[in-house]
């Protein structure tokens, strides 16, 4: 089977892999659209949640992984609690996002950058250093004045720290990252 205009054909193996992570067969979905109907972020999606399910049913790995929707899903679980077929769509979206990142499909670089900056902050200090986070993100994204309008007022509250809190167990945290990385390499 081939969708018009698509070069890739069906990838059943990919579907099976994803299904084992979400513990449900995507064939259960009968395309009722209840997941899409109250998805707070669907206005920003290229494929609605039910269309993501549909693409999965048709084994369209590439179209799914290229989808912007994965990046704009807030993992709010609205879809999951409403699905009449008990499909955990929120989980599906996050499983797909991780796969997309692994395979190098990035639909929104800013979001990718924000997520990675956040994780790096954890890796470095063990906790989030918010002022540093915003700064680093703005620098790297080139969007220097992002959120600049609230910056000064925020500073006035005195809630922001200007130095990171470095936890004592920083080494333990680093080790988590390192061990994960080496175990991943071992598997490849």
């Amino acid at each position, binding site marked *: 089977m081939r969708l018009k205009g698509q070069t890739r054909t069906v990838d059943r193996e990919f579907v099976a892999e994803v299904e084992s992570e979400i513990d449900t067969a995507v064939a259960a979905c009968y395309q009722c659209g209840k997941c899409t109907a109250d998805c*707070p972020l669907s206005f920003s999606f290229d494929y609605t949640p039910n269309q993501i399910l549909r693409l999965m049913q048709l084994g369209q790995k590439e179209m799914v992984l290229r989808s912007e929707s994965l990046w*704009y899903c807030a993992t709010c679980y*609205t879809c999951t*609690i409403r699905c009449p077929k008990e499909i955990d769509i929120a989980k599906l979206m996050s499983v797909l996002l*991780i796969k997309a990142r692994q395979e190098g499909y990035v639909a929104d670089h800013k*979001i990718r950058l924000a997520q990675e900056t956040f*994780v790096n902050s954890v890796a470095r200090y063990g906790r989030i250093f918010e002022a540093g986070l915003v700064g680093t993100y703005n620098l790297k994204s080139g969007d220097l004045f992002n*959120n600049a309008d609230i910056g000064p007022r925020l500073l006035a509250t005195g809630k922001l720290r200007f130095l990171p809190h470095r936890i004592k167990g920083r080494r333990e945290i680093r080790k988590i990252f390192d061990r*994960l990385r080496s175990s991943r390499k071992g598997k490849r």
Partner: protein
Amino acid sequence: MTIKYAYYPGCSLESLAREYNVSTRLVCQDLDIELVEIPDWNCCGAAPACQVDHMLSSALSARNLALAESFKLNVMAPCPKCFNRLKEADLEMKDNPDHLREINNLLEKPYHKGVQVKSLLQVLYQDVDRELISCRVKIPLEGLRVACYYGCMNARPADINDFQNPEDPTSMEEILAPLGAELVDYPLKTYCCGAAFGLARVDLVLRLANELLEMATLVGADVIAVACPLCQQNLDLRQLQVNARYGTRYNIPILYLTQLMGLAFGHSSKELWLDKHFVKFRKLPGATQAVSSGAR
């Protein structure tokens, strides 16, 4: 009888949501809940970690759980995202021995499945007698129209927030009822605020915040009560951004549940850091009373 918890404030409560931290501690003290902060806790990784690597997210949470375990105390987290990460990691490790083994391989100090994780909301709802809350009220919040906003994380997913209905949670209302506030029906109480997109995609957040603020205005709320740092920030911090973008003139204070409780329990607005909000809360209930009771 005091209840004792290992306290996990989480990163937000150390910075942008410090008033949540302060008011939580005050209110817990009033309600005989002893909080022992987990020493040297680390960030749970929040949403980004689990969107980047699920194992990483679990391991970060597991370290905190293992720390709490050495105190033989169950864990309480005020931030629903932290709660979500900690509890999901805990459930997965309890469910799946292989997963537990893999995670422990990443840690210096293994976790033995010995704690339970609760959110602040759950603790206030389940562990605290409503009678006790009534007893502590010094200044009833009479005439204050409160819309309770849970957001997504305080209601869902169902297996994490298993103490209330994910579709129509009522814990906040039930906790606030003894304070004398007037609780308005807020139909968007579990709608999402855009969560963590504030950093990279402010536009997404503003659109949702606008919907939420419009509805709060429509139902005539004086204040929106929240129990999540992200909800608070997206609605308070960004209220002026919403006004700028959509040409609206919202002016609705966004208070933490614990700040409202603190007010009713007789704490001053300064103690509760109310002045740190962008949208100022001016309709202090019984403002005159507050002075006199303070004098008493």
